[in-house]
């Protein structure tokens, strides 16, 4: 039995997980229209490769990774591209983003696939395959996986952590995936271990998922793979928290866990690594939990780009349902509209209703009770961060480690004054980012202006010199003429 570590804080909100685990994963039908955003990952948007009117096959790359931190986007089924333009995106702002609209032809005809024999390949070509297959972290952070599978020269990865903790209430997509497709997850983990040369693979699963633990244990036979049940506590499935629990290592904000010899991936990511390498299939669909105020909560395997309201209709929303949350109730965001597409980050859709999510009580002033600090898994002092963020004292907020905040929401959850603390931190962070952007732009403008001023002065000087030279020549000429 492995000795587990613990992190400070954490909470035990009501689980609401059993509702959506009663039925197996169901494939959602191909919708009439797919809207595929080009920016579904951390980093630069993919560059569109197709034009309106093009016919595409299932699995064909329609958006190419641009720059290093980027990932590709593919046609989830065969059909015709009808538009490339700005469509409402699943983002808290409700703003539009560049998307490719695809009208399926119903044939679901695959492009030619090229399985790889990974054992006889070097990791860098495997990474290229993952980048071209659009493999990103499916736990919600959607960071391009090929970057995390590049430990860098001279770095030794001791532990590969597979994250099956799934600590947030309501979400069960990883749970169901582990129950039903444990073999493929393990196969993906083997590929990752091969790429990282990891000594051990620890699969952390919260102990509220006994079926998943049993299925995963049944799927793996050999060492150094180990399934480790971890205590159920939110946010125990946060990468940093899970790494801490399994290995005792604390990864500081701003540092890469690879530098400390650990790397962590979601179980669903392991599965898509396996599909991309062993079957040559890019990420075209994902498992999503549709739950909350619906009559038939369950997990669906849905194509990327499926409109979310179509999925909600499959689950038969109750009468007083109203709006939806993408992600979990602790870290997800309220969708400004349900007419937005499913993306790689969409692990869960919680349909809201007034009975399930009553309006938040009116906030009261902070009484400095310190409950937030007790619950903070990042060991911050949320009440101080709140104070500085509210006052617009962003420098001080950074001094108190604002950017170590993982926005897990524990502080807001326990706050007896019901202060929307996390929103204050998000506000402060986005103001700081905006200031940095402006600073960068103004620095650039200053340099360009200075260069221009220098150039103009130089030109003036050169002109004056030329003039002086000319007049001197003229004078000598005149003098010589006079002399003659």
């Amino acid at each position, binding site marked *: 039995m492995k000795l587990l570590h613990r992190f400070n804080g954490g909470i035990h909100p009501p689980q609401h997980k059993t509702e959506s685990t009663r039925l197996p994963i169901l494939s959602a039908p191909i919708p009439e229209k797919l809207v595929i955003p080009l*920016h579904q990952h951390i980093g630069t948007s993919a560059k569109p490769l197709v034009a309106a009117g093009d016919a595409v096959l299932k699995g064909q790359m329609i958006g190419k990774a641009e720059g290093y931190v980027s990932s590709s986007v593919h046609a989830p089924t065969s059909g015709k591209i009808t538009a490339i333009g700005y469509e409402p*995106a699943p*983002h*808290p*702002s409700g*703003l539009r*983003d560049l998307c490719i609209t695809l009208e399926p032809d119903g044939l679901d005809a695959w492009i030619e696939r090229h399985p790889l024999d990974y054992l006889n390949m070097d990791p860098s070509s495997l990474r290229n395959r993952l980048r071209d297959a659009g493999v990103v972290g499916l736990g919600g952070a959607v960071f391009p996986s090929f970057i995390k599978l590049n430990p860098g020269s001279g770095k030794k990865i001791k532990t590969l952590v597979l994250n099956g903790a799934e600590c947030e209430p309501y979400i069960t997509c990883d749970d169901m995936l582990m129950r039903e497709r444990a073999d493929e997850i393990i196969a993906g983990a083997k590929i990752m271990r091969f790429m990282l040369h990891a000594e051990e693979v620890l699969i952390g699963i919260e102990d509220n998922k006994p079926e998943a633990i049993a299925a995963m244990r049944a799927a793996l036979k050999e060492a150094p793979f180990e399934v480790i049940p971890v205590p159920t506590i939110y946010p125990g499935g946060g990468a940093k928290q899970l790494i801490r629990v399994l290995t005792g290592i604390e990864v500081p904000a701003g540092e890469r866990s690879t530098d400390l010899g650990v790397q962590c991936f979601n179980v669903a990511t392991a599965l898509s690594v396996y599909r991309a390498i062993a079957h040559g299939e890019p990420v075209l669909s994902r498992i999503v939990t549709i739950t909350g105020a619906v009559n038939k909560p369950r997990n669906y395997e849905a194509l990327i780009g499926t409109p979310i309201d179509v999925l909600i209709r499959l689950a038969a929303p109750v009468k007083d349902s109203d709006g939806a949350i993408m992600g979990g109730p602790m870290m997800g965001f309220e969708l400004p509209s349900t007419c937005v597409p499913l993306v790689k980050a969409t692990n869960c859709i919680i349909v809201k209703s007034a009975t399930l999510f009553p309006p938040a009580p*009116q*906030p*009261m*002033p*902070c009484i400095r009770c310190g409950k937030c600090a007790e619950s903070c898994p990042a060991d911050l002092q949320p009440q101080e961060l709140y104070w500085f963020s*509210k006052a617009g004292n962003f420098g001080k907020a950074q001094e108190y480690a604002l950017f170590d905040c993982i926005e897990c929401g524990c502080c807001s959850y326990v706050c007896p*004054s019901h*202060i*929307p603390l996390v*929103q*204050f931190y*998000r*506000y402060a*962070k*986005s*103001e700081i*980012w*905006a200031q940095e*952007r*402006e600073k960068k*732009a*103004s*620095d*650039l*403008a*200053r340099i*360009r*202006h*200075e*260069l*221009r*001023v220098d150039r103009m002065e130089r030109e003036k000087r050169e002109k004056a010199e030329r003039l002086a030279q000319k007049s001197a020549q003229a004078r000598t000429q005149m003098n010589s003429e006079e002399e003659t």
Partner: protein
Amino acid sequence: MIDAILVMSGLALFLGGVLGYASIRFHVQGNVLVEKIDAILPQTQCAQCGFPGCRPYAEAIADGRAQINQCPPGGDANIRKLADLLGVEFKPLNAKHGAPKPKSVAFIDENTCIGCTLCIQACPVDAISGAPKQMHTIIAQECTGCGLCVAPCPVDCIGMIPVPESISTWKWKQPDYLMGVA
């Protein structure tokens, strides 16, 4: 009596020495203040302040030749920073120098442009590319939105377009916090 005088003059000498040393040891270059002011100014180089650019305005503020409230692109937020830096009272933007406008970039209607290069000469940050008799175009990432290119254009083909909010520049708002306005 004598003791007191000796003590006082001794103290005076000692403290004077400390102050003298400090003034040499911790001497601040005159330029440092200008740099600090310049770092706050938005670098649009729009000259709405009445000076030919941000740096000349910074120098003027440092010399006391200009007020801190003459920069419309910086707005009240920048005036506050300047007030903090210089230890003076905040004052609202002087309307004489213009009103703050949303961040914009210039846009050249390429069908109308006659390639006269007047805008290129007016641009303080070299953000317009083009050559005589050739159509000009704005390098949007480098445009500061100062609007100095608009007036010189003989065919009125330059417009200022506000930069729309995108997902990557969108900001979380401060929560409405009704009760604890404390």
